[in-house]
């Protein structure tokens, strides 16, 4: 075991993993975190706690991670390169580990231009690839990036993201290979809607032997409405929403669109369970945490394994 986290145990035992997502509040109310967490408890193996997502200031990821640890859930502590340099990153990792955090997700981060402080200086001292390598070095060599020894190195299960849909498509699988070389243990993909393209990407990864070296969690975000689908298609960079999916949602009564969205998500999850190279699903039910129990039930992901 690299970290002994629940997520690592579930994946190494060969179970099909199911992870959730929780966005910390824009304020100090810990109960808001607890309330969201209550919907996820027992439903998922770990919860990704976002780090100032879309470059909007929120409660820090490590702080919200500690709150959900206290609630009996396992956090997946997200860290972006946009907001801190290598000193701050490493000290936050030490502190997070000291508080019991065992999983991390290493990201570059959305550009600050999108957020509530577009005038901020983007740090990007190191990039996501280099962050993965840094965490691995801290864990496996017991050394800081600068080379000095760490007392009681943090044993972190290292995650990262992959977007199979952003161009150039042919390069995406090679970028995955680079992240594996850097030392990533698991991958969360961008929300998948274009199944055909995803299948092609996974096939490439299988052929290159990559899926034997990394646990691939397929990203699923159920559509709540036609409006959301259109917004994702047109406004979210790197998102690939096929017209057929929008048509399918348009084909049902407005009141039933959310249900249809969940139905589509469940069909996807069914396919991912069978798809060679996919080790689990990362469910990003954005501001829809209370729907996770229903989705988990309908996708036949319950009960979650105890390893």
């Amino acid at each position, binding site marked *: 075991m690299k970290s002994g986290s629940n997520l690592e145990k579930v994946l190494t035992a060969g179970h099909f993993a199911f992870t959730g997502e929780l966005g910390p509040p824009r304020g100090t109310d810990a109960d808001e975190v607890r309330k969201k967490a209550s919907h996820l408890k027992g439903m998922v193996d770990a919860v990704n706690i976002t780090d100032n997502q879309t470059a909007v200031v929120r409660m820090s990821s490590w702080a919200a991670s500690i709150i959900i640890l206290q609630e009996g859930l396992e956090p997946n502590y997200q860290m972006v390169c946009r907001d801190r340099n290598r000193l701050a990153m490493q000290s936050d990792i030490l502190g997070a580990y000291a508080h019991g955090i065992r999983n991390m997700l290493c990201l570059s981060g959305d550009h600050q231009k999108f957020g509530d402080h577009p005038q901020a200086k983007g740090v990007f001292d*190191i990039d996501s690839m280099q962050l993965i390598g840094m965490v691995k070095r801290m864990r496996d060599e017991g050394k800081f990036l600068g080379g000095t020894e760490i007392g009681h190195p943090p044993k972190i299960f290292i995650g990262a993201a992959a977007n199979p849909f952003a161009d150039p498509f042919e390069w995406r699988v090679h970028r995955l290979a680079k992240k594996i070389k850097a030392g990533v243990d698991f991958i969360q993909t961008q929300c998948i809607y274009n199944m055909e393209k995803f299948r092609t990407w996974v096939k490439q990864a299988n052929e290159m032997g990559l899926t034997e070296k990394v646990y691939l969690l397929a990203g699923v975000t159920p559509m709540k409405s036609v409006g959301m689908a259109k917004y994702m298609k047109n406004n979210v960079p790197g998102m690939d929403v096929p017209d057929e999916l929008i048509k399918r949602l348009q084909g049902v009564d407005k009141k039933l669109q959310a249900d249809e969205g969940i139905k589509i998500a469940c069909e996807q999850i069914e396919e991912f369970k069978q798809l060679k190279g996919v080790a689990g699903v990362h469910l990003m039910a954005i501001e829809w945490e209370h729907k996770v129990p229903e989705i988990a039930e309908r996708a036949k992901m319950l009960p979650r394994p105890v390893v």
Partner: protein
Amino acid sequence: MIVAKRKPFNEIKSLLKDYKKVLNVGCGTCVAVCLAGGEKEVAILNAELDMARKIEDNPVEMGAITVERQCDMEYLEVLDSMVNEYDALLSMACGAGIQFLAERYPGKPVLPAVDTTFIGVNQAVGWYEERCRSCSSCVLGLTGGICPVTMCAKGLYNGPCGGTNNGSCEIDKNQPCAWYMIYERLKGQNRLDCIMEITPPPEWQNQIPRTVIQPGYKKPEKA
């Protein structure tokens, strides 16, 4: 070249408000080429200041001179006999030139008339684009001659990120994705192996003032 743009007129006017006699020093190199601070721009700014101060009933006497390069001491000598006649110097050179001028005349207020913007190229007359952040550790040999530090909005050494959008950067549809361009160029040259390996964390060298002494030269002993 170094590209600059003139500061807003009111800001310049405000910087000069307490001075009655000001020497405006242009620079004949980079800022002249990018139409920000050469001889012509010195004359235009002086005329504007002269008129504005007359209207305010607070006239200013503006002197004008444009030297070859303000970042070179030998070209500043010509000013030695002039500066004492003035209350302040206004410099239309880049930030380096302004500081060199201030260093030569430490007793005189030296004020900037331009905002130094970037190291860039001349796409057409009046149209300049940034290309270099002078990071001191050039990776252009690996990246197909396209700088990820300058041209990628996140300065990624191992891009592209997941925000590439039909070849554009996630921040703006009109901003090409640097890593998309790097990929396309290296693919065209059959050199994709250049970016297959991970580029390690950079050793940032542009965090403190740097000095370059070329081989065969040395810093003169202090007299």
